[in-house]
């Protein structure tokens, strides 16, 4: 056998051996070792090539080509084996990493915004979008802001209906009380504006806590109101209706009809109770609306000229509307909450369920 033939047969044996060993490899690490063993710098293939020196100049390129063929074949076989093994290994790892995904997730403590706060936020946002500015006022009030300036003089029958909480007062002190409605913010805002040299237009939304000395199933001694008012030239009752309609439909996320009924409040003239189409039965009549198809939701009206007078606004030039929303009532209607007392019992199960 010539030198070249014996080299070739040596290479063929090597190739066969190598290919056989590749199929035996069970993991990528073993395969890597085989790669080094056969194709590495000091590998078997290089070893065989040491015999090339014995060949003639004509034979060398022939054997070179042959070696390259073997090398390519081995490389291809190694790559193929590697690909197969890595797919298998990945599949194995995936199998090993398999979870019982029905186990509970790591529990984060669930917080919640109180439903009344949520209601206040929603209501204020709607009015803010309509251009109303948010204002606040004190809860410990005096009689001037809570009553007198709102056209409810001392002997007025409406004053008795307010069930006011009073504070113990020193002799010289003006009587202090807990505000019975958010309407004093109307007075403070308008008066503040006029006293600092301003004039209307004013468009204000005033959220806050109010207090009435009344405590039973349907009354809480503390609750929340949102006072809304606008004073400008030519503000009319039609604007009042427009704002109410927009607000109620936005808040309840439904196009609801509204209905105004004449009523009496000392601080508005004309005054109106506002009904909204029942959100539960779409006006057909149900237990909650007592079959009427309407829900009474708030009191409203055109600001009484005596109120404007009390804060120094000329009622022959300016007019305005005002209304007060009972926050708890609207939240109860929106979410079907049956009992006012739930809001102040603060049971976290209720709050987590209802809160946002």
């Amino acid at each position, binding site marked *: 056998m010539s030198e070249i033939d014996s080299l070739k047969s040596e290479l063929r044996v090597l190739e066969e051996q190598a290919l056989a060993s590749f199929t035996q490899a069970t993991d990528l690490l073993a395969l890597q070792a085989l790669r080094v063993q056969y194709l590495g710098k000091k590998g078997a293939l290089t070893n065989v090539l040491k015999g090339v020196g014995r060949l003639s100049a004509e034979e060398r390129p022939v054997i070179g080509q042959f070696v390259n063929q073997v090398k390519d074949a081995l490389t291809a076989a190694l790559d193929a084996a590697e690909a197969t093994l890595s797919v298998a290994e990945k599949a194995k790892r995936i199998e090993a990493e398999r979870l019982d995904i029905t186990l509970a997730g790591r529990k984060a403590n669930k917080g919640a915004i109180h439903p009344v706060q949520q209601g206040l936020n929603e209501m204020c946002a709607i009015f803010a979008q309509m251009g109303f500015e948010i204002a606040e006022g004190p809860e410990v009030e005096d009689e001037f802001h809570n009553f007198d300036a709102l056209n409810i003089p001392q002997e007025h029958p409406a004053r008795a209906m307010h069930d006011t909480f009073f504070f113990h007062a020193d002799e010289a002190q003006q009587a202090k009380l807990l505000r019975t409605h958010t309407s004093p913010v109307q007075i403070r805002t308008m008066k503040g504006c006029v006293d600092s040299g301003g004039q209307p237009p004013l468009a204000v939304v005033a959220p806050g806590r109010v207090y009435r000395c009344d405590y039973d199933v349907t009354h809480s001694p503390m609750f929340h109101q949102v006072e809304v008012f606008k004073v400008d030239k030519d503000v009319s009752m*039609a604007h009042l209706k427009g*704002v109410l309609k927009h607000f109620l439909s936005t808040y309840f996320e439904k196009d609801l009809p509204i209905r105004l009924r004449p009523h009496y409040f000392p601080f508005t003239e004309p005054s109106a109770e506002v009904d909204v189409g029942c959100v539960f039965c779409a006006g057909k009549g149900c237990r909650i609306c007592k079959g009427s198809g309407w829900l009474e939701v708030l009191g409203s009206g055109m600001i009484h000229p005596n109120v404007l007078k009390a804060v120094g606004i000329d009622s022959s030039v300016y007019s305005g509307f005002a209304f007060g929303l009972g926050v708890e009532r609207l939240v109860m209607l929106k979410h079907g909450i049956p009992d006012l007392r739930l809001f102040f019992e603060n049971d976290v199960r209720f709050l987590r369920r209802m809160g946002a």
Partner: protein
Amino acid sequence: MKIPFSWLKEHVQLTKAPKDIADDLVRLGHEVESIALPQAGVLGVRIGQILDMKPHPDADKLKLLKLDLGEAEPLAIVCGASNMKQGDKVPVATVGTNLPNGLTIKQGKIRGEVSFGMCCSVAELGLAEDADGLLILPTDAPVGMEVGAYLELEEAVLDLDITPNRGDCMSARGLARDLAADGNLPLIAPDEEPADVSDSVAVPSVQVTASNDCPLYMARRIEGVAVSDAPDWIKARLLAAGQRSINGVVDIINYTMLDLGQPMHAFDADKLTGGLHVRATVEGESFLALDGREITLHAGNIVIADDKAVVALAGIMGSEHTGVTETTTNIVLESAAFRAALISTTRRTHGLVSESSMRFERGVDPEMIAVAMNQATLLILELFGGSASEVITIGDADTLVKHKVVNTSIARIESRLGLTIPESADDVLNRMGFVVTRKEGLLEVEVPSHRHDVSLAEDISEEYARVIGFDAIPEVLPSLATIKPHAVDTAMSSATAAGFVQVINYAFISPAEQRLFTAADDKDLVLQNPISDAMSVMRRSVWPGLLNTAKHNMNRQQAGVMLVEQGRVYEKFDTEKNKETNVIAWLMTGQIQADAWYAKANKADFFDLKGAVEAWLENRGLVARFMAEENKLGLQAGQCAKIFVGKAVVGFIGKVDTDIASNFDLASDVFVAEINLDVLNAGKKAKFQPIPEFPSVERDLVFLFDKKHSSEAILQEVRKAGGQTLVEAGIFDRYIGKGVPEGFVSLGIRFVLQDAKRTLTQDDSDAAMKSIIKAMADKFAAELRG
């Protein structure tokens, strides 16, 4: 106010059904609370006569009755009332009757005695709120008849909520006037035929010295009456209107008031000493009211007095001893006007309320004073005989009924309502008693005397709105004029995002709760008329409320709670001003981590809450410092800190004293914090900073420190020594135990270096480490470990 439908029809020929009339009333501004059909509720209740009455053998308070209901056999009933006697006729609810109060009558045994029904009071018949004793029916009531039919209850009764501005509508006639005008129906005039007057009866002697408060006083004497029960038709009407029958004369007075709206009073003339004097009171005068109460009057009240005593608190209530009774033969009848505001303050001062005062303080129709006097006289003379004197009138009736005039313009009314006013609306107002004149856009409106509530152009606009109907007003959105954008307050949302549940507690707490966290001083705001002692002081800390909420929830199977509340705390500031401060407060107690497949149960500690507060402040762009606080009332020393932002104290955090916690049934440690939002809100908004471009270098050093040094103080020195490039320093490890000498603590300090302009080198970090090691040695004699 309850008014039977038939009564309205006596004043106006209504053609609609009660339900439709109720709708009209609502549209006109009179709230209809209900339309009741009383008979439906008393079907099966029949008139029974008591044949026999014996005490129950086993019960002192019960009686055994035998009642004749017109059947072959008398009915046996056990009854607990005591106001009846043998021979009386009473309403008997027979077996199977459903009473208005929801009771269904069944045959039963009461203490061993069989009972086949129930004898009823007016309350049980649903005709009044309450009653004492059975309703005793007139002697001529037919036995066996349905009570509903007998009392003429077959018709609807409207229950109205008349607003305080419409005193003129607190009568059948007043409501009928609105309905007549609205429906364009004629209002039937009251009986104007004057009562017969006998010259032989002397007019009573009356003197009015308080003419400002009593602008008109009318009185007459009626002699020789024989007072008996009012006729059934009057009694039935009173009953339907929710009023009890007293005696014939009093019933006529009440009937006239409900009919015409004018409250009157009748004195027993023989119980008066001398003439009547309408005058202001002097301080301390006493008055024995109709309900038997002795009232001490203040100066400036207005009363009717005789020569001896106060015989009536004007417009509110007569006295106990001078009222008309069954035995009265001579009467003085009063019909008058009193100043509304005075009646209101007087009755409120003394805690009195009557049908009369309710009408006077809301304003009555002065034109009815004489009409009512005449109508009541006619009825008394017709029913109980006697002869009447002339009427003595003191005061100027003409001035009282003079019509006000309001001048305005159509344009003004239209611009207020956003509506065009048709001339047809003028006609409705005219029918209501107004006199409307339009001339070239100007409007002159004469206001009838009964409309005390109308005096301004705006009042006229309301009248137009009422008669045109609020439904006619269009819905117009005003043009949007954004004045100031509204900043969204994230105080609460960032707290709840961290797992806290927002609660809202009452702003008033008990005095004892106030003292838990606030020492006694003179700054408490104390309610004069609290719901209860537990709700009598305005809170100066939110913590008591949070403790109560924690208690409520922990008693309901919660293993732990994380609560947050935002609201005000209140205190007296000086004599005129009070301070209301907005705060946010947290409470954590019990498990914040339950046993789970991935973790062991874990209870809240100081650092859980501190971390939450720090994160909350960080969300607002603020870095807090905590300084140990030894003397915070209610919090445990050593686990309590003052919270600083910059130089300002913004709040406190700490562990609630365990005695306090156990008073709230809280067994686990309770941690609370409170931050003053008013101080914080004055702070800055977060400013943009570029994200660092060059990498940071992190290094750790472990030292042995004397325990007395706070980590805050140590880190402060680390920051100083670390130089310009030190951006963060913290404790990553804390160890006490083996290898650490007694009184010492091993602290691992990790710091981060970063430069905005270049990548830091090994030399940079070595220099910083060296400087820190030196500083720790110099300031704290701290040794570097391993």
